[in-house]
């Protein structure tokens, strides 16, 4: 356990030294907050750009606070996932490629600890940044629109987090398999996009797909009721996460650290 903590502390320190603890949360704040701001100030923005021609009538119904939050969340599942993949894809492949993994693992360090310490470190960064960013979004939505109940905020935060966790774990797992981080990143994005596409095009058969969590969480926000399939698909997301993590550890153990 103390060895795991040592590895984990090193991860936290590294993320601090390379400023991940600063730029990832800030990016997440900007990503989310832009939604309530741009929705609220849309008329002013249009005016400052020269306004509409005389006589043109466009009626845009003001969005509800929930809709603004959902728009913000959609930023996290697109650009947010991209950022998560970019910050995670090199964690294992980079260290193995540079050779520093061999320096560490020639010491009596357990491979499981080595991989999971990185996984937990990346999770902490993701959940933390997402919390800060989404909280800011919720706050601005509250000021500019209406206050969404904090319990709904936390529920949607949690379920979206599960989906992001799966994306992150896929990336870690692929990072264990490939020496080039670019390859790991590309394939992770491909898998996430594929899951989304398959789920939305075959939605009748994909009721329990992990990719549906976000849809269900949106429903939860809008109606305040828990959709039937939310729990099964969340459970499936958790199971997938664990499988990807185990596969990642397994592959990492089997790979030779030094190749020639």
């Amino acid at each position: 356990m103390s060895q795991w903590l040592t590895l984990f502390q090193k991860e936290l320190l590294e993320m601090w030294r390379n400023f991940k603890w600063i730029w990832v949360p800030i990016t997440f704040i900007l990503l989310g907050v832009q939604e309530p701001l741009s929705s609220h100030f849309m008329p002013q923005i249009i005016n400052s750009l020269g306004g509409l021609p005389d006589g043109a009538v466009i009626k845009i119904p003001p969005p509800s606070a929930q809709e603004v939050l959902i728009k913000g969340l959609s930023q996290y599942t697109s650009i947010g996932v991209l950022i998560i993949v970019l910050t995670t894809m090199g964690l294992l492949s980079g260290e193995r490629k540079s050779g520093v993994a061999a320096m560490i693992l020639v010491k009596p360090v357990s491979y499981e600890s080595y991989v999971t310490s990185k996984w937990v470190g990346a999770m902490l960064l993701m959940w933390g940044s997402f919390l800060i960013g989404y909280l800011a979004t919720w706050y601005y939505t509250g000021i500019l629109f209406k206050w969404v109940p904090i319990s709904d905020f936390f529920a949607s935060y949690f379920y979206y987090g599960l989906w992001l966790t799966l994306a992150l774990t896929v990336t870690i797992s692929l990072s264990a398999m490939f020496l080039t981080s670019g390859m790991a990143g590309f394939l992770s994005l491909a898998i996430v996009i594929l899951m989304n596409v398959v789920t939305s095009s075959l939605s009748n058969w994909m009721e329990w797909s992990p990719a549906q969590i976000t849809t269900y969480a949106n429903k939860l926000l809008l109606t305040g009721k828990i959709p039937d399939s939310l729990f099964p698909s969340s459970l499936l997301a958790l199971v997938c996460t664990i499988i990807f993590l185990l596969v990642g550890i397994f592959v990492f153990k089997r790979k030779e650290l030094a190749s020639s």
Partner: protein
Amino acid sequence: MSLIEIKGLKKSFQGREVIKGLNFSLEKGKCTALIGPNGAGKTTTLRMLSGLMNSTEGTIVFEGTKKGDDIRKFIGYLPQFPVFYDWMSGIEFLEYVGKLSGLSKKVACERALHLLQVVGIIDAKKKRIGKYSGGMKQRLGIAQALIHRPQLLMLDEPVSALDPFGRREILELLEKLKKETTILFSTHILNDAEEICNQILFLHNGQLVESGSMEELRERYQQSRIDIIFQNNEENYKDVLKGLTEVESITSEGKQLRIYVNDIELARREILRESMERNWPLVKFEVSGMTLEDVFMKVVGK
């Protein structure tokens, strides 16, 4: 008593056999050099011993351990090109690997400071490793290999990357460490091996072609040699020298002729008499013994 025993060790990469069955054991407290030309399989062998690479066949048994035990805690390993976390300072890295090796925070810190002192980079302890020079990284590499007082210290080309001063210092350091721990190091610099090692393993094309202590090897390959340098072109004299009864073979090395002879006494008389009669312009005439280099050339040339 042997600390580690290797039997029938083989390694293939994509069907190509790189290590073709090694058998040897390392004796406790001895310093052994793994010698061989580039591509002989030195690094691959060390990587298999350190557990970084799996062997295709064969066994590696560490004294006092059962099959399946983690032998990494007994081993300190320095790869040929050590890599660190560039954002850490030297002392941070040593404390980190120390704690990973099971030392308490306090002990790891003391040990790190001590080792930085020993390898001579204590002044740079707070500097980021990214700013270290190649020689400093090599020293840090040796320090990290020693952090948990391993029973077997394995070093892959520890001095090849260093300047003459650094080389000298590291060799002196190894000389000191020899008393505390068993050392196995690979090198292609034969002088270094000759200087500090008790045991020599010659690796060539993935096979152990020769092994033994320095004295044993000298005895086995004993052959007397006379080196001669002439003022003018040495090729002029080769034929006459070859005709002498005591001369076995001649090789030239730059301007120098190496004459391998049967009986040193008779050969010396014969060659000197010949050069007197023919009035040869000798610049250097030296009777020399076998160096490791000669053994190396002979063994590898086989």
